[in-house]
């Protein structure tokens, strides 16, 4: 081997400053949205309000589900709120189901595919990988919520009259205001799912079996909701990450009550910090043997 060759390799290898690494986030999000599974889940979510709208339209009945969307009966007079109704019905199960799949898969999925070791020796940096995985899960939360709200709003416009809407407080708002309220609801629901995403990310660092991490995350969201409905445990309720999930109604009053929006955001942030720290503690020193 000639010393020329050595110095040539050395000089081409001696590197400049590292990039900030946005490319990885872009790659993560594009990989997420290039999976057929992601689109299948978004399609199922979009189907929820579509099926509701069709059912209401066909039967002309006003189903007043025990689920609480008291203004479901309004849908026949105003199609703009179909999206909001859809998201209310999706919050307890459908949304956590899909978020559980994405967040639970984040690290465990890479481990089981064998790509985790190649990311780590690239080297991706373990903390950076956790952050990127979490951000991608958050993007999915937004996409999932919007899938329901947008599909619902569109099908509502197609099947029902569009006009001023009556809020829970009895006030009437115009069409632009109604659309803004729908967007606010989307933001609220997205934030509501961020704590669950952090829990999913942490569970995902515990195992190399993605299905296990997904199932555990989804089960936790159900358990939390069950606990939240047991009156004897009311001291626990404000600490449950699902506690404000159905507090969307506050955004449908005049004037808007921001109380649950604020409490929900603080609670979700606390869950992100707690489970982010747990995920870091677990993953930063974990032996990757997959």
């Amino acid at each position, binding site marked *: *081997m*000639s010393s020329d*060759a*050595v110095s*040539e*390799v*050395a000089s*081409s*290898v*001696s*590197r*400049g400053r*590292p*990039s*900030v*690494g946005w*490319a*990885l986030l*872009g*790659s993560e999000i594009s*990989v997420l949205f*290039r*999976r*057929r599974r992601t689109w299948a889940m978004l399609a199922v979510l979009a189907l929820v309000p579509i099926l509701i709208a069709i059912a209401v339209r066909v039967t002309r009945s006003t189903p007043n589900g025990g689920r609480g969307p008291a203004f479901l009966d309004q849908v026949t007079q105003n199609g703009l709120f179909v999206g909001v109704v859809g998201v209310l019905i999706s919050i307890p199960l459908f949304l956590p189901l899909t978020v559980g799949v994405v967040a639970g898969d984040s690290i465990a999925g890479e481990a089981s*595919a*064998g*790509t*985790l*070791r*190649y*990311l*780590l*020796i*690239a*080297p*991706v*940096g373990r903390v950076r*990988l956790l952050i990127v995985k979490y951000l991608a899960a958050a993007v999915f939360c937004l996409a999932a919520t919007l899938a329901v709200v947008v599909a619902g709003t569109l099908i509502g416009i197609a099947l029902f009259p569009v006009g001023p809407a009556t809020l829970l407080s009895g006030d009437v708002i115009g069409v632009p205001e109604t659309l803004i309220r729908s967007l606010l609801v989307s933001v609220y629901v997205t934030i509501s799912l961020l704590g669950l995403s952090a829990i999913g990310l942490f569970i995902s660092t515990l195992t190399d079996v993605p299905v296990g991490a997904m199932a555990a995350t989804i089960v936790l969201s159900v358990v939390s909701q069950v606990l939240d409905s047991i009156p004897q445990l009311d001291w626990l309720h404000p600490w449950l990450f699902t506690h404000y999930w159905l507090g969307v109604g506050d955004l449908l009053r005049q004037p808007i009550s921001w109380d649950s929006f604020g409490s929900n955001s603080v609670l979700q942030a606390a869950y992100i910090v707690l489970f982010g720290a747990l995920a870091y503690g677990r993953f930063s*020193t974990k*032996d*990757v*043997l997959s």
Partner: protein
Amino acid sequence: MTGDATAAIETRGLTKRFGSHAAVSGIDVTVPRGAVFGFLGPNGSGKTTTIRMMLGLAAPTSGTIRVLGHDMPRELHSVLPRVGALVEGPGFYPYLSGAANLRRLDTADRFAPSATRRARVERALERVGLTHAARKKVHAYSLGMKQRLGIANALLTPRELLVLDEPTNGLDPQGTREVRNLIRSLAAEGTTIFVSSHLLAEVEQVCTHAAIMSAGELVAQGTLDELRGVGRSELRLLTPDAGLAIHVLGSFGLSAETTDAADGSALVTATLLGQTAEPDALVAALVGGGVRVRGFSIERPSLEDRFVALTGEGFDVVQ
């Protein structure tokens, strides 16, 4: 860059325990810069575990590792961009194409310039002969194609050190040859190569140095000649006149042994230590002494003989 004086890889007392079972126990491996280093050992002897520790995937239970002059895993971020690796087979996203997989893994390296990403991916695919399959989804790849893609991933940026864990696993004879040539050409460019394998013939063809693992311990290490045992070669003589031959060889200070061979001949063997006598002189003496020589050869022990001698004959995996 840190001086070339330091070894590419240096481990001291490297140990990894899984529960009470020591997968790697106190090994001291030294891989000189520029070497093609064969890391040999039977199944379960701890090769992959050692490689995982060298790359910072698993933490050693005890002992130290220095790679390219830096402590691992403490200085992992300055070491790993200069190291390409294939560990325990390839790992890819089945739903992405080969090229998309490489681009994805390349974005993970913050030192890999995104401006040249596409060109570097094309080049790496070309080097392993996968250009035609670049747009194909990986789930439609054969085992050997995935293995090639794994090697391409290790070549995405110029590397000072390549760590390849069984690179020819699943490859056809052409692929195996190509990998050998690839290793030779990379070594000629000055890249240090650490390759684990249990295909001894292969290691013998490309490596300059080797180490042999057995049940988690390092049983031998050095240049290939040192390992084979220079000067230790064996004389094999086929003759019907065994008694006479032993007598003649004895006059050269050789102690010979006899085993029966076919056609009324006997196989006479003797170990040649150092330069006792030139083979042609031995044959001349044998013929001159009236020994009918039907076959004569001097055999240097192969790496395989040495390997089996060090790691045992048994087929069972040693724990």
